[in-house]
């Protein structure tokens, strides 16, 4: 076993798992993808992430790194010479990128998830409004961060692009299920164009699930009774 071998423990449908995979692709770092079985956690996962027992976990030279955004920063710092920087160059712009990544995880994604779980028109309307409010904020954030360039990070995909872009497949599934567009050319024109660029990027395409496949999977897991 090579001493600097890289493994990623994850699952194809998880947007969080997509983050380290995109980062590794951007830095052209080969890795072994260890797919977890849905509903049963492997020994390696439990050993590598005993605190949270969650995916993704990056294992580099037998040392585990946990938490998706932290893994992305680790990849960026470890393979800094192998590709453009995933974080902006100034401390202020980096703070802004980290701020929005935290917002996406703490506020935006939970409200997106609750659209699929919402029961009744009233609740659905309320959570939709929350997501749309978030999208408006992120549309402005994109304009501010990108400064006219194609991605949040500028010329190249970076930390914040990955933090947000990993949710695009689930966003499309939610739009299909709800019959309601969330990111489109009218409400969020910049994000709409960015989303297309992001999904077509060669570092992203191989790890982004097809909307139809993901929709099938979503039906299955949301059909299960609560654990």
């Amino acid at each position, binding site marked *: 076993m090579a001493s600097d071998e890289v493994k990623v423990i994850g699952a194809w449908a998880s947007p969080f798992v997509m983050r380290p995979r995109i980062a590794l692709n951007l830095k052209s770092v080969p890795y072994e993808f260890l797919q977890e079985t849905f509903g049963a956690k492997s020994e390696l996962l439990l050993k590598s992430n005993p605190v949270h027992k969650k995916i993704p976990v990056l294992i580099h030279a037998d040392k585990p790194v946990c938490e998706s955004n*932290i*893994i992305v*920063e680790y990849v960026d*710092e*470890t393979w800094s010479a192998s590709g453009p920087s995933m974080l902006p160059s100034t401390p*202020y712009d980096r*703070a802004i990128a980290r701020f929005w990544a*935290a917002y996406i995880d703490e506020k935006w994604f939970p409200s997106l998830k609750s659209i699929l779980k919402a029961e009744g028109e009233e609740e659905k309307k309320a959570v939709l409004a929350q997501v749309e409010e978030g999208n408006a904020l992120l549309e402005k954030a994109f304009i501010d961060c990108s400064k006219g360039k194609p991605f949040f990070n500028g010329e190249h995909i970076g930390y914040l692009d990955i933090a947000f872009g990993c949710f695009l497949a689930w966003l499309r599934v939610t739009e299909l299920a709800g019959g309601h567009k969330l990111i489109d050319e009218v409400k969020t024109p910049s994000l709409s164009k960015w989303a297309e660029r992001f999904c077509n990027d060669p570092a992203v395409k191989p790890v982004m699930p097809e909307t139809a496949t993901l929709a099938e999977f979503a039906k299955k897991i949301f059909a299960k009774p609560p654990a």
Partner: protein
Amino acid sequence: MDESDSDPGSYPIPPASVHLSSLTPPPSARLLLSRHVTRRTRPLQSSPPLAYLSLQGLLGEASSARSIGGGGLSREEALAWELFTPYQRFLIVAVIGVAAAESKKNGVIAQLQNSVDLRPRMADEVILLDFWPSPFGVRARIALREKGVEFEYREENLREKSPLLLQMNPVHKKIPVLIHNGKPVCESMNVVQYIDEVWSDKNPLLPSDPYQRAQARFWVDFIDTKVYEPADKIWSTKGEVQEKAKKEYIEALKILESELGNKPYFGGDNFGFIDIAMTGYYMWFEASEKCGNFSIEPECPTLMASAKRCLQRDSVVNSVPEPEKIVEFAFKIRKIYCV
């Protein structure tokens, strides 16, 4: 700097910077000339390109003794100047011009270096919007003091948030907010990282190794989820909910204690990122114990020892309120939330 004349483009030049040994003017002429090349002028107002040296004005008037020295030479000096051939005069002026430009450039470099050194002390405006008992706000205070950064502390009334807070953190409307030269940074550990990156010359708060940095970030994330949620419930709930919270809180602290091991700080020998994150909770230990009627030390003795060490650090002593004040505050808030 003397502001004795209205020539804004020059910088004082040291006298006698030119040797004319390759030409052979009479010694008296050499001395007189070099003395009169010095001009005392106002400092540079802007940075004109110094690589290009204009000899036009100088050359045009090189033949005229009156033009030298910005006011003419004395009779003897004029006579001495006339001893040079026009070609020699041209060379003398050119050499002096180059030397002057060099000196001017070095003077500008020195001036710029001074202003760069002065800038952190003079031009930086650092304001912290904060709330005195906040375990999150205290992190920013500690980080700024670790770095020796002068800042203006502004107390926020969280029941009546200032227009500045609402403007600087419109998304969350929360403290702490660090405003550095007018630009806001929000979220406490984001603020700490920002402070570490901007004032990187002393007391590094994050390790330099990528793996160690990932570990530090991981544990801070753990603290802000697994310690924060039960800690919050301990002072704001009672009965079974509070009992469950106490158990979860101690469990989380035990996990942290095992990560700490035998190290004096989470950062090893040095107080760092994880320690700063935890200090917000260390300062609330007494209040949590009193609200929950339990004791942390018997459960986590080594963590407690590290906590005491952290609470004694200068940057921390100057940042945390007295424990009795936090206890008093906790009970006041508890009355409101715990009906």
